[in-house]
Each structure stands twice: as structure tokens, then as C-alpha cells.
């Protein structure tokens, strides 16, 4: 089954999250990460707003995360080994018509290849991203895992209370995208040694729509009431004022379907500890 829909959050919870603690491994216990990945200690994931009867906190277990987003060159290797993921062969059930649009062909044309090899692959669907990670014996990170790592600034595991840092992050969301994504590694290196989480591309997560799953029937009045209360709390919370970037990521993810491929949407992989 993999890890899809691993984390089903109550709807109000997506308005913000508070990371109250990190698991601190004892000295000498930090496992050596696989090549190209970093070890991320776990944490406790606590939504700011919860409906009654919902678990208050979710524990995120320690895991590994790719240092960089997956590049076009890496994805090309995947396609060559898995021909059903070629641009011309992919099933419309698994990726929409713009899949690998920027390659212009099944293999990127030489001049295209030179320009994009070391840039994050985009125009890939959630299904494609998931298949790539499986091929690597990895998986997509959950939104909880992704957001945990993305809280970090360059110097601290939780950069939210640094208004200057948050303002810089928010700025990216207001600027038009460049014609091609920046080279991998050209963005921020954060506290965990992970690059480009901010200021480069959007990234798929395993449960990209889990934020809206209540697990039962939808569209009833009670559910709307919950959303309403969430907004009120959102508007007045000082905590949330500095967490707008996370808020916008949730909004973005919720506009997606698994088959969508977009010019600014790529991914990186995660892996469980052995």
C-alpha cells in the first residue's frame, strides 16, 4: 500500500501546525543516511486547531530525505529503465497531456538536455513521482514530514518565529516563476542540510490532499461549521501570521489532482529507516 494517505488530518488542522518537540537521538545513534539523503529526526506534529475527538498530535518517525529535488537527468534514467513512463507512452490515467512537456520528445533534445539536466524535473504527475521513488526503493514524503523539514531556517529547526525569514519565504510566492527552475543546490540550505525546499519549485507529497480528508461524508453543515471556526482562529493567531507560507502550500496542494503536471511542480523522495 505504500504511504499514500498516511496522514489524514482533520480539516481545521491544516490551518497551521505547531511542532512542539523533536526527538533527539543519543550521541552515536544517528544512522548513516543513504547517498544523497539526510537523516531527519522525528517530531511531534500538532495541529493548531482540532475538532473534538481527534488525536491532538501526530508523531513523525525519524526518516531520510533527499538533499535535492529530483533532476531531469535522474528522471531520464528512470524513464529509460521504465519505458511505460516515456512521454509518448504514459497512460492518460497516470499523467495529463502536459507530462514532460519541456522535454519536447521522449528524450530531451540535446540542447534542451544541456539546459535542464541539473534542474529539478517538473511536468511530472503524482503517479509518476511515486513510481520514481519506488524505483529508487524510496517513497514520497508525507506532508507532515515535508512541512516538518520546511520549518527550518538556515540556522534553526523552527524558523517561524523569525519574521524576517518568513517574510523572505513569502516573497517567493509573490514573484513570477522563471522560465526554467533554478539549478539544484542554488537555493537555501537549511538546518537539516536539505536544499531548495523554498524558493525553487513546488513539490509533490504523498498525501497532497489529505488536509481535506475527514474520513467520512463531506459537504454537510457540520463540516462547514468546522471550517468557519478555523478561519476565525486563523485570523487572530499571532502564530499563524508568520506561517503564511505553509498556508499557501496547503492551498496549492489542494488544487491538484494526481494526474496533473505543472511547470513549477516537481518532487523529492523520502525513505524509512532500516
Amino acid at each position, binding site marked *: 500500500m505504500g504511504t499514500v494517505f498516511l496522514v489524514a488530518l482533520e480539516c481545521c488542522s491544516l490551518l497551521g501546525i505547531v511542532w512542539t518537540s523533536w526527538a533527539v537521538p543519543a550521541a552515536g545513534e544517528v544512522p548513516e543516511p543513504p547517498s544523497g539523503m539526510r537523516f531527519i529526526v522525528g517530531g511531534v506534529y500538532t495541529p493548531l486547531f482540532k475538532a473534538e475527538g481527534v488525536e491532538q498530535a501526530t508523531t513523525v518517525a525519524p526518516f531520510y530525505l533527499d538533499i535535492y529535488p529530483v533532476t531531469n537527468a535522474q528522471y531520464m534514467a528512470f524513464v529509460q529503465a521504465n519505458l511505460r513512463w516515456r512521454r509518448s507512452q504514459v497512460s492518460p490515467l497516470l499523467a495529463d497531456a502536459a507530462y514532460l512537456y519541456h522535454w519536447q520528445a521522449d528524450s530531451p533534445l540535446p540542447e534542451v538536455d544541456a539546459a535542464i539536466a541539473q534542474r529539478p524535473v517538473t511536468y511530472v504527475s503524482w503517479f509518476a513521482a511515486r513510481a520514481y521513488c519506488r524505483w529508487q526503493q524510496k517513497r514520497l514524503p508525507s506532508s507532515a514530514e515535508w512541512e516538518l523539514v520546511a520549518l527550518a531556517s538556515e540556522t534553526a529547526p523552527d524558523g517561524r518565529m523569525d519574521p524576517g525569514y518568513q517574510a523572505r519565504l513569502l516573497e517567493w510566492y509573490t514573484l513570477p516563476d522563471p522560465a526554467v527552475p533554478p539549478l539544484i543546490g542554488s537555493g537555501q540550505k537549511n538546518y537539516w542540510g536539505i536544499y531548495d525546499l523554498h524558493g525553487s519549485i513546488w513539490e509533490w507529497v504523498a498525501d497532497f490532499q489529505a488536509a481535506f480528508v475527514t474520513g467520512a461524508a463531506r*459537504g454537510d453543515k457540520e463540516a462547514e461549521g468546522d471550517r468557519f471556526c478555523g478561519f476565525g482562529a486563523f485570523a487572530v493567531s499571532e502564530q499563524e501570521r508568520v506561517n503564511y507560507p505553509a498556508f499557501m502550500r496547503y492551498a496549492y496542494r489542494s488544487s491538484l489532482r494526481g494526474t496533473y503536471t505543472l511547470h513549477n511542480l516537481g518532487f523529492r523522495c523520502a525513505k524509512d529507516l532500516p
Partner: protein
Amino acid sequence: MQKRALAWDSRGVGSVLRLGLILLVGLVIGEASTRAQSTKPGGAPAAPAEVTGQETAVMTDAPLVPPPIKRDHPTKVIVNLEVREVVQRLADGVDYVFWTFGGRVPGKFIRVKQGDVVEFHLNNHPSSKMPHNIDLHAVTGPGGGATSTFTAPGHSSQFSFTALNPGLYVYHCATAPVGMHVANGMYGLILVEPREGFPPVDREYYIMQSEFYTRGRHGAEGLQPFDMEKAIEERPTYVVFNGAVNALVGDNALKANVGETVRLFVGNGGPNLVSSFHVIGEIFDKVYAEGGTAVRQENVQTTLVPAGGAAIVEFKLEVPGTYVLVDHSIFRAFNKGALAMLKVDGPDDKRVYSGREVDETYLGEQAPEGYAAAQRIAALGKKVEETIKQTPAIATMTKEIQVEKGKLMFMQTCAVCHQTNGQGLPQVFPPLAGSDFLMADKARSIRIVLRGTSGPISVNGTTYDSVMPPVVQLTDEQVANVLTYVRNSWGNTGEAVSADEVRLERENHN
């Protein structure tokens, strides 16, 4: 896993989930329920007439309005609206990333008729960074369309609605954070004509007020990012009509002729401020308050336009001149940009208005001169860069550049009272041209700009007793430039004023 996920989508649950944060935001819910209760007298349809035929909506960029609808029956109207995120001018030297409905701010004007069935297509351009949606206040139904149009970049959504209630309605993006999407320019107007139409007029125009919140202060040059803190605290850097400072002045001013009746469709995108909409020198003969279909008041000086609301005003033009449209919360007009112009040509009527014409008060030449000055500044700037390259000793701005920069600032800030030619207005605003008072004391002139002045002063032998407010929004450098311009124009000759001198005066008296 794939099977499960696909089945999950095909049951339609996926689309429900995509209602997304928007619904969370409650605002939408509040609006929808308000609309549901608003069956107003004469507004709610009886038995709908039969919908026949189909057409594609003609949509226009502000300040233009699509022509009145001639047909006498409802039809199916197809609306194609494209969302684009674009860099455009917010003020001279200031760029901003606008999120737009149709490529401009405000968004396209949509005109339909009561009873029409509108098939609405929202297309989010592939280059967009953000998902967007649309809440049309003309829609009766949850979210005003927002729940059906949440659209990722490079995708399209479609929904249909029947235009049950006539009136002038705002539409806006309702994607979280709603305030940010609105603050970046995502609003426009949709007019639902009543079955009987509006009475014919000679001209119709589309004007929409809104605020912008930028990281830098008013006038700070370059690409300015959105400032969430200022937006939350409701401290706008700019308040403008039609998406930019001076969007409707100079050559771009609205135009009409004496004897004509003008109808303005006025919207307010907000996101925060309520507008006190006023036309200097005109009285609204009729006001369809809040964008409703009944003339609620006649002979109105200033009408309120709520954020997320609209008004329709009509007035007949009796005498020629330049009429200035403002938000009469007046610092917004003269210090933040909420100022537009209507130029009226035709014969004088001395019975209606005699005496000295105030035509020149409103700066017909302001914009062209401003642009020309900006161009010369750029050219001179290049020249200076070249010179500095060759002669590193030259590090300060030349007086010539100061004069040009000062001129630009003068036209935006000072000319409203002192006039573009520095002549002032008799008995009210003293002249700067050839002014003995101005040239006698440089430090005093700096203080007056910084702190204003009131009470009688003598200029060239004439006593003026009025008030000049402090010009608080200018930087030291901008004050220095504007004074250098004033002291070296219209026959005045004097030495340049430096930013250091301004800073000293500011500090000495604080």
C-alpha cells in the same frame, strides 16, 4: 494503490476535497448566505423568461464598458476569463507582481442580462505560480462560484449560473489567503442588467478603487513585493483607481463633452478600505447606491463604496474643464494615488460657472510631463554612470538630475495646489514662480515642506492666509530634489538643496 486513488477521484470525492481552504475561510460562506436572503423588492425574478440562443460575452478592460445589451430575452452567455500573474507598473518607477483576471487590474468588465444563463470558464495560465478561483457576487450559490472554480496553474474550470438578481457586482479571487489574492489585484465588476435595462446615457465608464501594500514606502523604486504585515494592519502604501497611480490622468483621462450624461460603474476591490467616492466640481444627479438597481438618492456629493461592493453614479456635464475623481478620505487622493480625471470639452456656460476657470487646477499636462521627466532622468542617470566610471570622484547626484527627479515629484505631490507652472492660485495658494518668500530662506523652505505652515505669509507683496499640510511621505532625498526643482524653475535660480540639509532640518526640530 493506483486503482484506489482513481476510484476515489471518479466518485467525485476529489472535487469536493478541492473546495479547499477557500471554504475554510468562512468569508465565502458568510457571503453566500447573505445573498441567499437578499430577495429584494423588484429584484427577484418572477417566472423566468425562456432562455434562447447563445453568445460569447464581450468583455472590456477598464475604463471601457461593454455596450448595453439590446436583446429582450435571456440567453446563454459564455464567459472566458483567463487568470495571469504579471509584472506591471504600479507607479512611476515602481513595479508590482499583479495577479489578474484578464491581464490587467481591475479585471475584465463582464456584462450580462437578468435571467441569462452564464457558462463561466476560468482558465489559469500555465505560467501561474498559484492556484486561483473566482467568487462572483452576482452568483446565487455556495461560494459564488469559488467552490466550483478552484483551478491549478495550466488548468481550466467551468460552472454555470443563472443571473437571478440584477445589479452591479464585484467578483474576486477567494483562494487562501484570500486577502493576499485580493490585495494582489484579483477583482473586477460584473453587471447584470435588469430586464428593462438601464436608461440610456451618452457615456459609460468603469472605475475600480483598491489598495496595494508594498514592502518599500510610497514611491520606493523597483519591483516591490507584497507586505503581509501592512495588509493585516490595513496600512496601504498606495490607494489607486484602475490598478496604478495616474492610470486615469493626462492622455488617459476619461473624456466627455458638455451636455452629455455620464454613468460611472464604480467598484471597490479593497481589500480593506471603504471609499468615499467624490468627483470634484460635480454633483451626482443619481446614485444607484451599493450597486443596486433602484436610484436610492439624487443630488449626492460623495457616495460610499464598500470594500467588495459597488455603486452606479450618473451626472450631466454642464460646463467644460477637468474634473478630478477622488476618494475623499483625502490623504488617499493626494498622498497615496486615489485620483483620476474626467476631461470635459465644450462651450463655457458663464451662468453655471463664471469667474476664473479652475481647469488648470487639475493638471492636464501632469502625466506627459511626468513621463518625459522620467525618461530624461533615465538618460541622465546613464550619463552619470558613465562619468562615474571614468571619474570615481564624482559620487553625488548632479543638480540637473535633482531638478528632473524633483520635477517628477512636484507633479505628483505639489502641483495640485501650486500648479504645474508654479503660479499658485490667487488668494489661496501662493506662487512659487518668482517667489521672494521662497528664495529668501532655503532652510525655511525645507522646514515648510517637512512640517507645513499656517497663518499669514507675504509673497511678492500679497498676503496669503491658508494652510499647507506637512508633506510627510517624502524621503530626505525626495524633499531635496523637489526643492531643488522649485528653486531652479520658472525664473527662479538658486543652489541645490542636499539630502543632508533636509536631514539636519528634520533632526533639529524633532
